[in-house]
């Protein structure tokens, strides 16, 4: 591969720089997904011992796992798209309230599927993944609904299912998918390096869009009609933490993509760091402040900042890379 590039360098009039794909894989994707796999394995182990909602250990393990997920949640292509794995980890937003509804049915009917992590892989995604687990641990109604014994096993089942799916994602990256991206141009999935870069840029751009429009936009609603009850993971008071975590992860990806272009890398670092410090001055973990003018302006300002980051990525990083983001899963309505 390197030889081919070297020869190309001699022939082509344009300079060919080493692409950012390897760096992104080695310093962003693989370590983050390894962390997701190990944190969720730990979560599952903790749940085996502490399956009651109020357990501080369980809540701490949940929080570490969600941090890990949010930090890799933008990588929604390849291994996490295949087998619908990302959907199985994270069904949100849930605009029809399907998660509490399906959990209530499970808990009140004591459906035996909840006792078996293997069978549970057939379960509706509304009752799987981090968002379902959050309801089971933190929601005042769901966390006390049904029998304690069944609820305990259901928490263990959901945690084991999360750990298994996370491990599958990481394994698939390590054993197969990373090589498809590294060897872009030599396989049909990525017919050129541009295509691999386009996928990474798409993940970055879509991740920013998701954080701005969903994580921030849904609770903000409109000025006249704020919707604090729609904040992501408000029950575990993670709404702001998720936004912050996602900006940090996306900033890391942006800077790696900019690679050897020092001025652009520096610009991106500064812009992402500013957004993070804007998040840090918000003292409103569940975004209930969207309904209070004083807090609301800060959350709105953060949303603007995230939108500006996306603009920066699309107008400065994308042309530098010579590609534009491909189609993404938010393109629908």
């Amino acid at each position, binding site marked *: 591969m390197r030889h081919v590039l070297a020869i190309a360098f001699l022939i082509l009039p344009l300079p060919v720089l080493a692409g950012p794909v390897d760096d992104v894989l080695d310093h962003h994707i693989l370590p983050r997904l390894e962390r997701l796999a190990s944190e969720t394995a730990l979560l599952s182990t903790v749940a085996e011992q502490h399956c009651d909602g109020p357990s501080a250990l369980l809540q701490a393990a949940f929080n570490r796992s969600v941090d890990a997920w949010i930090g890799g949640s933008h990588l929604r292509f390849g291994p996490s798209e295949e087998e*619908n794995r990302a959907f199985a980890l994270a069904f949100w937003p849930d605009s*029809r309230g399907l998660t509490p509804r399906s959990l209530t049915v499970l808990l009140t009917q004591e459906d035996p599927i909840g006792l078996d992590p293997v069978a549970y892989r057939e379960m509706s995604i509304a009752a799987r993944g981090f968002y379902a687990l959050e309801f089971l641990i933190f929601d005042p109604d769901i966390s006390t609904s049904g029998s304690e014994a069944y609820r305990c096993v259901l928490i263990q089942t959901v945690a084991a299912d999360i750990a298994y799916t996370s491990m599958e994602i990481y394994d698939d990256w390590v054993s197969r998918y990373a090589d498809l991206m590294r060897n872009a141009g030599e396989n049909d999935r990525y017919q050129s390096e541009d295509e691999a870069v386009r996928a990474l840029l798409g993940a970055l751009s879509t991740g920013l869009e998701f954080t701005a429009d969903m994580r921030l936009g849904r609770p903000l609603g409109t000025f006249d009609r704020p919707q604090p009850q729609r904040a992501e993971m408000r029950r575990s008071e993670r709404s702001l933490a998720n936004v912050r975590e996602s900006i940090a992860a996306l900033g890391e990806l942006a800077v790696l993509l900019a690679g050897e272009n020092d001025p652009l890398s520096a610009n991106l670092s500064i812009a992402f760091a500013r957004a993070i410090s804007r998040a840090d001055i918000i003292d409103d973990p569940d975004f209930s402040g969207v309904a209070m003018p004083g807090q609301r302006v800060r959350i709105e300002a953060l949303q603007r900042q995230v939108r500006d980051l996306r603009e920066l990525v699309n107008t400065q990083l994308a042309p530098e890379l010579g*590609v*534009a983001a491909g189609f993404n*899963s938010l393109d629908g309505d």
Partner: protein
Amino acid sequence: MKRAITLGVSLFSFSQAALADEVTDVLNTYADIAEAGYADSLATAETLQGAIAALIDAPSAEALTTARGAWLAARVPYQQTEVFRFGNVIVDEWEGRVNAWPLDEGLIDYVDGSYGGPSDENEFAVLNVVANPNFTLSGEAIDASVITPDLLQNTLHEADGVEANVATGYHAIEFLLWGQDLNGHGTGAGNRPYTDFVQGEGCTGGNCDRRAQYLQAGVELLISDLDWMTAQWAEGGAARTAVLQDETAGLSAILTGMGSLSYGETAGERMRLGLMLNDPEEEHSCFSDNTHNDHYYDGLGVQNVYTGEYMRVDGTLVSGPSISDLVAAEDAGIDADLRLALSDAMRALGRIKYAAEAGFAYDQMIERGNAGGEALVMGGVNGLIEQTRHIERAVAVLGLDALDIEGSDSLDNPGAVFQ
């Protein structure tokens, strides 16, 4: 890494008269297909209006069946126009009026007790306008004593900023014709009795006069919306003009619509999510069990605009130079691969349709643990994802992927994003 941009320049800076003419022809074919598709949607909606008038005039099981048949027929051309979304602002701003989904149908009419009540997301999920001539909406007293197109469009639709408050369009009409599908994953669609439209004695479900008013107002509104959109694509219409005035933007609109409908909308939101939720209501036409056709004709619409061919409901063929010709001129391999991917996806979507028409309904396919159904639906999903990958290659080979960048405020004023 500069390659895509170079190619882009090659296509458009080479712009000799011949090439410019060719692009204009391609854009005109696209607009012709849009105009014909919306005109067919309008004509079939007018047939539906006639059938609804007959149903209300003399309610009977036959009249209800005829009206349902007219609704199903009207969906055939309309779904093929969905490919004009996502690339054309005029269509995007309008689409929610005619095809919004999913809906909290309790806003409109009576629902079964299992439906639930007001939710975190929607206070008006069980408002039931048919039964309530007066109610309060966001603090404002509403007089709904007469159900008019204006009331549906300007007061009820997306009431309280909730998208699931769908008061207008095909799916609101679908609900009034079929009612809720209470069969879960079992056999059968919604089964509203025709007596729900009987005026006076014999009326079931209550408020038959208001239900009839709602249905007529709904179809009247649908017709005026389709009539308006057809005009936008006619010679001199705003949608056609927008596509033609900037060749690069016009070509980009074609491919953006194809890719976005294939991937994020159909493969993602509508098909995969429904499958993964195993929820019988999580299908596009959940009252009528017509979802297999929704997906099939969406896919066909994508193939239509790429190949520049649309068969009208009267059997005439609209055709002309297409974006396929432009892609083939740049790289015949990419064009051939994309055509093949479109055909493969149509075959996979066809399998869902054939199975459904043979009695294996879409809501049965997405039931938990139904391996055959999952394989069918995932076949369609994978076909749509695969064709999207080839559409992205077509975007790149035509040099359209630098498009976002042009005309952006931030490009003119890069410092703005740091402020």
